[in-house]
């Protein structure tokens, strides 16, 4: 088999990988901000939930989380009489997003905490509400600081999508496995797969770089 024959099935797998990456980045970002800000909350319930969430999802393996959502959650739902059987796509996106969100939450928390205390004092002196302080003072300065870590997390998200192949989803890794089973040409197939992941990662890090440049202006002139 000529290598170009593998291109079409692999490209279809790569498209699934790209979709999973984008979905998990989107929902992961929401989780990051929600729980990162939650961990800084004065309300101990919000803070407690955020801490438990972050510790659980950072402290266990992504594959354990994925298997738990896909295999164990339906049984847990059965016991309390709710149908919690998730389609593989949903289980995959939820596991990837929650995992990514836990790592992202620590980045968000760190960046918000790193905003100079005098900024908060000034906001208080001007009688800003805490929501206004967060939205208009803290986040515009903190988000540019988060971007380098977010870039690394985005590459990590892309790499982590490869695990969804283990719950029967037809991503790039799954497509490769199928081709290998069929043609036994593992060297060519896996070389192509690795190069495709590399290519996607390069494009993704360029996109993150552009995003970083565009949010850097939020920092304003006062430094």
């Amino acid at each position: 088999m000529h290598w170009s024959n593998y291109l079409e099935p692999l490209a279809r797998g790569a498209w699934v990988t790209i979709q999973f990456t984008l979905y998990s980045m989107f929902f992961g970002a929401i989780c990051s901000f929600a729980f990162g800000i939650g961990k800084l909350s004065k309300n101990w319930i919000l803070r407690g939930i955020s801490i438990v969430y972050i510790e659980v999802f950072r402290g266990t393996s992504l594959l354990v989380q994925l298997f738990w959502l896909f295999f164990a959650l339906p049984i847990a739902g059965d016991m309390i009489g709710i149908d919690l059987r998730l389609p593989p796509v949903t289980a995959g996106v939820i596991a990837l997003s929650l995992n990514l969100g836990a790592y992202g939450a620590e980045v968000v928390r760190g960046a918000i905490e790193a905003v100079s205390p005098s900024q908060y004092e000034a906001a208080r002196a001007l009688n800003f509400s805490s929501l206004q302080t967060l939205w208009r003072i803290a986040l515009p300065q903190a988000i540019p600081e988060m971007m380098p870590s977010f870039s690394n997390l985005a590459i990590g998200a892309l790499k982590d999508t490869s695990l969804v192949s283990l719950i029967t989803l037809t991503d790039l890794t799954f497509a490769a496995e199928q081709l290998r089973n069929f043609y036994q040409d593992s060297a060519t197939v896996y070389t192509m797969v690795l190069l495709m992941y590399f290519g996607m990662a390069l494009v993704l890090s360029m996109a993150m770089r552009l995003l970083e440049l565009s949010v850097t202006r939020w920092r304003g002139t006062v430094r």
Partner: protein
Amino acid sequence: MLYGFTWDTGHGELAFAISILPILLMGLITTLEAAFLGFFVACVLGMGFAVLRGARSRLVAWPTAVVIEFIRDTPLIAQLFFLYYVLPDYGILFPAFLTGTLALGIQYSAYMSEVYRAGIQAVDRGQREAAKSLDLPPARTFTHVILPQAIPRVIPALGNYLVSIMKDVPVLSVVTVIEMLNAAKIIGDQTFDYLVPLSMVGGIYLILTIVASALVRLVDVKLPKRGISLR
């Protein structure tokens, strides 16, 4: 039955959980073995990458940078499949466990080389100058002056990667290694009860990473910072 232990499905969830605990702990041993072996490979290989990346010749440094970037940007599972299926084509037959630890080691060597490099660059420039003025050959300067100062500073960062490696070991299950998650999965496949074994694996992982992270912090605090330059 797995590892010579049978599970007890007739006497409720608790009896079941107790009966499979020894199996999961046997799996945990495999997980830890794979993690430490992979960590060792990563430490050695990462140092090699760091030295080549820092080489004065661009002919060496740039290709190494590309290789490191390539390893960092591709998923462990794809690298693992590559090694597992392609190495035998070239007559290299490793057991699945060794291939897995090799893949873990290679993946993390790319991350560790960056840590080493940062540590080496953080050593005061005066140290190199002093070594040069004492006419110490470059190789000895590196092994006897730079490294003893660089390594203690990077140990906490390396320790954090050890914790990450532990969390990546379940990926080895795709090449038939029976580590903790795979053991739980097998129990689930045979008893149709995934909830108890998978939740136990989650719990054990949580304990493991919390303890390991605490140990890394302890080492960081207790570690004598030998040979830090005088200021």
